[in-house]
């Protein structure tokens, strides 16, 4: 499962949130940099990354009034950013088999940017989910930068979850 780690991810710690909103295997991986910037990505177990899934659309318009594409930040403190809570939706992705998946923030913080590259090239979401196929970049509040990981699992804890799933299904 260990994908090739390039230089981009060297200074990141991986945190996991499995079965978000109770939906089985909809796992996310939050890459946290030592400078507290977080990158939201799909974890390997996510249905969208399984063989045979074809992505038909990616939509950052999460409600009538809110499009993540309209997020604009200015200055060092990223003023004007949309504020996210753990279960704030980032985007909705549909697959050819009629399924629709919602990608959630998983952490509290300011939305810095969403990945527009996956709009033009959805394939990279599946080919390189941990790097070029990232979903969004979020900046937690300075005071909360340590506490945001409290609701998340470490790599080791996540691997135990995966093991449990394997055992329960067999």
């Amino acid at each position, binding site marked *: 499962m260990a994908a*090739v780690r390039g*230089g981009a991810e060297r200074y990141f710690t991986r945190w996991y949130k499995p079965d978000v909103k109770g939906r089985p295997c909809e796992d996310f991986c939050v890459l946290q940099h030592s400078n*507290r*910037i977080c990158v939201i990505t799909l974890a390997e177990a996510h249905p969208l990354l399984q063989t045979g899934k074809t992505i038909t659309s990616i939509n950052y318009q999460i409600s009538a009034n809110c499009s993540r594409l309209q997020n604009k930040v200015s*200055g060092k403190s*990223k003023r004007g950013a949309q504020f996210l809570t753990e279960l704030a939706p980032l985007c909705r992705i549909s697959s050819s088999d009629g399924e629709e998946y919602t990608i959630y923030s998983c952490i509290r913080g300011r939305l810095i940017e969403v990945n527009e590259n996956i709009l033009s090239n959805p394939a990279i979401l599946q080919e390189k989910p941990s*790097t*070029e196929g990232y979903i969004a*970049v979020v900046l937690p509040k300075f005071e909360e930068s340590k506490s945001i990981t409290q609701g998340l699992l470490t790599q080791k804890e996540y691997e135990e979850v995966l093991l449990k799933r394997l055992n329960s299904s067999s």
Partner: protein
Amino acid sequence: MWLLLRRSRETRYVPGVGGGSGFVETELSSMSSLTEKDRPIVQLLLNTGTCPRCILRFCCVGSQTVYRHPYKDLMKDLKDFLKNNQEKEDMVCFDVVDPPCKRIRLEDTEEGPDDVKHNGTLQQIPSVNDENTAMENSAVEVCNVCLGILQEFCEVDFVKKVCQKVNSADYQFTSFVFSVSLPPQLSVRERAAWLLVKQEMGKLGLSLAKDDIVQLKEAYKWIIHPQLSEELGVPADGKSLFEVSVVFAHPETDEECHFLATACPDCFKPAKNKQSVFTRMAVIKALEKIKEEDFLKHFPCPPCSPKNLCVALEIQCNNGAVFVAGRYNKYSRNLPQTPWIIDGERKLESSVEELISEHLMAAFKADSFNFSSSGREDVDVRTLGNGRPFAIELVNPRRIHFTAEEMKGLQQTINNSSDKIKVRDLQLVTREAIGRMKEGEEEKTKTYSALIWTDKAIQKEDIAFLDDIKELKLDQKTPLRVLHRRPLAVRCRIIHTMKSEYIDEHHFRLHLKTQAGTYIKEFVHGDFGRTKPNVGSLLNSTADILELDVESVDVDWPPALDN
């Protein structure tokens, strides 16, 4: 009467203070600028407690040398000047026994009880029969306009005190500028004195513009500069980098300005840091605004005589900053540019700036430094080749003169002290150095050498095409590793040329020449696809950067020396 006349002739032939030959002109020379119309002013000011030099100022005497005459002589000459007039009157009305005393006595009773002034000293009334006593005034009353600045603080004792302070501070200097900070209430008293004089001159049908009066600070400098210059052995120069500053205060009269706050409230901003609201600038502004009638309602005119002199609160020395420039090489992959301290804890030992500045601070004996360079490199990046230009501002240096040989010696000392850095072309420069740094950072190209790892196996031919790519345009979003402290933006940068060096199936070295401000590491690994194109995308693989070196910073400043 005959006696009177004879005595006056004798006084005329006493040699003047300018070391004169005893002719009429020399003896009267210090007061030769004064004319008939000045008499009532001189009399009035002298009676109300104003010192001779301030009197000269209000009579618009512009000759610098006059002010430098000793205090006693000026006092005597002024009184003689006044007597002159009285004698003439004597000659006309010789039946009057003691006209001068009588006149002055009258004015005295107008002011206060008898002949005792509120500063406790007996006013010695200059009488024609009593000249000698007049000259031996034991207590010099503090001037009600300058509060002693043009009196005590022009004397040799104060000059010596200042020079002692300067000499003990051990500065190197070739000239000096003497700056003086006066208490704000002096402006108020100056205004009161002007109004008084203006009124008196009005009686003669004459006017007196504020600008015609000699400024107190100017007169003070006329007197003290030559003395300081002689004692220190260097000239006074307004442009000098070596500043001797004195702050004067007069606590006794500090509250005199307070009435201005009620009269012109908008001139006085709320005080910061417990400092007085009544700053010199605020007081001057208020004085410009306030109407004459309102001023006279609140402030005595003439100003009252103070008990005490001003005090010199601080005598400080300061040298203008010197600038040292050079180029540095960095050989360590574990050295930050500036000290790396988080929550008071130092994360990595030392830094480029500390290793260079430490010895300069000691040699120049400066208070502090400001380090700047033409861009910078990460902790784990080496700087090779000619090195990166840097400039250090040394603040308040005690030593400023260094020969080229001494600078070379300093350079050697720095180089001997550490193997992590090296400096070259170390030299003294001017302030424009800082601008040059900025220019170098933003405009000049840099060349790098990067050790690259690829996921996909490669052969020599697979990377050869990189050598042919010229002027490659990159779009670089703010790298994630600095995004917490920089604004989100997209930068267009150009890679001018590249040269590849095959090592093995998964490694090669890439030499690049790039535009200023290009993020090299992000160009190699792609930063989550946020730098496009990148080495990974060009090779259709995943790439990583293992090592980075700066090969050159293409700035031809500072000038190269024979190192």
